[in-house]
């Protein structure tokens, strides 16, 4: 029933109003001091260690993609292991087909050097 959800709506409205009021009050009442220091990330003066928007090695992306291959497999293997006794041989072979498909992907990554996570120049110096 819709009326059961009115408290949720009320809470949402309150949260929204509170946020808006707080932002508006601080914008109206605060004193602005211009200058470089107040634009820094840490106004206390703590120096930054590094920039946050910088180029990240594509290897991290590769790790994430490799992880998907194994994680999807594992995600299906757990429930499969629970019901394998009831499912019997057809279920066993169904999973073997699936694992076979994953293995093709795995073999491709392996042969392509996708599991070799050293930076490119290090690999080159090893080869040469």
């Amino acid at each position: 029933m819709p009326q059961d959800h009115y408290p949720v709506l009320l809470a949402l409205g309150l949260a929204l109003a509170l946020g808006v009021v707080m932002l508006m009050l601080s914008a109206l009442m605060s004193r602005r001091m211009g200058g470089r220091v107040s634009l820094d990330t840490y106004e206390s003066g703590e120096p930054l260690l590094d920039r946050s928007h910088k180029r990240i090695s594509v290897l991290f992306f590769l790790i994430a993609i490799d992880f998907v291959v194994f994680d999807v497999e594992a995600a299906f293997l757990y429930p499969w292991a629970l019901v394998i006794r009831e499912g019997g041989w057809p279920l066993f072979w169904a999973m073997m087909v699936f694992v076979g498909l994953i293995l093709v992907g795995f073999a491709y990554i392996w042969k392509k050097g996708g599991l070799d996570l050293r930076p490119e120049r290090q690999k080159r110096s090893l080869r040469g």
Partner: protein
Amino acid sequence: MDSIQPQEFLLLVPEIVLASAGMLLLLTGTLKTSNGYRLCAAISLAALALTAVLLLIQGIPGAPRVILSGMFIVDGYSFFWKLLFLVASAFTVLLSDRFLSDGGYRPAEFYSLILLATTGMLFMASGYSLLSIWISLELMALSSYILAGYFKHQTKSNEAALKYFILGALSSGILVYGISLLYGATGTIQLDELAAALPAALALETGSRLAAAGWLLLAMGLFFKVAAVPFHVWTPDVYEGAPTPVTVFLATASKAASFAILVRIFYQALPALAPDWQWITAAIAVVTMIWGNLAALTQTNVKRMLAYSSVAHAGYVLIGVLAATEDGLWAVLFYLFAYTFITIGTFGTVILLERKEYAGETYSDYAGLAQRSPFLAAMMLVFMLALTGIPPTGGFFGKIYLFAAAVESGWIWVAVVGVLTSAISLFYYIGIGVQMYLKESGDDTPSALHAPGLVGTIAVCAVITVLLGILPEPLVQFAKSSLVGLL
């Protein structure tokens, strides 16, 4: 769960063979000696041919057979589409050969993705549950995203892939959301059960709202895939930026596959909503025809013009869909069949005239082509006439059948818009003819016809285009016979 008979898998052998071949090709890509362009093309052509042979051995199914607990159906309708997809993929492979070797791009992964996308299309044609249809669609779409960005050192290709991926992923999300709402309204995702449960759901207040939201979202996702206005914005950029053989693949096989599931879902799952989707489809068809043709008029790049023309043609096909009669349906099959060959031929000619990746795509590059290469100019003229719908070409009968079906079922105003916009399309199609035959060319270097696979493909497509314009009856019979059990 219903018990699944092992012999049901026999009906899916063509798909299994094709998928295995795709993975085999992927593995050959890891071999050191994998730069065999000819070898990879030969393997994929052999795989496609083997799949087609297996399909033909199964023959045209007499009565529809629902298999694997209602996941898939094998009927005449799926048979028709599967043959068309296999042929379109084989031609794509033939068109790609020179393109890949010229650019130095790896062939194994490319052909592997083509085969896997085709596998997805075959499953789409057979899909009988919204879930299996959606997953097959994703197999096709994910492969297509990578294919669109295959020229990875070209910014244009990257742009095409990214735009296609983001908009495609969004539309897939919309599609699956619509499916979930329909499931909520009816409690099933199998097409025939959904059709049976829908009237009862529509009688309830919440059920009818859920179903309405569900099918509208579903239709939006499908209209996106067939590139109908206003869901077409990705088309020109993707068609222009993707490697031209991939553009062929997207404009023919991928578009036909999307129409295959659109028709099946509308006709087999949503007959209870027919008046609603007829109106929506009519509105979309009219807007698509007008916008596609007007936008195509203003283009200077041939690939972009063909992209908008493909949008416009999606509009024509939708006319046949909204007629909701048997005549309208076989007209859709006929049109998409003819359109596939015409489009492959057109883009084949474009590929032969392209020099390095994206050069040679503007209208002025076609100036004086009749002197440089009379053969290519004549072929291009045939395809342009066919796209306009001028006899004696397959495009003429395709349009006649579509418009006649619309008139018979009472959608006269839609057919009138179709005829008028076809007249508009004459300007830009014939514009290329004018460039080729009446303008002087800047350079006199004769176009080389050094790619036998390409030239053969173009010639075969031209012959089929003209044949369909003289003898449409066999294809009409085939299309009619493949509708058994669908309506």
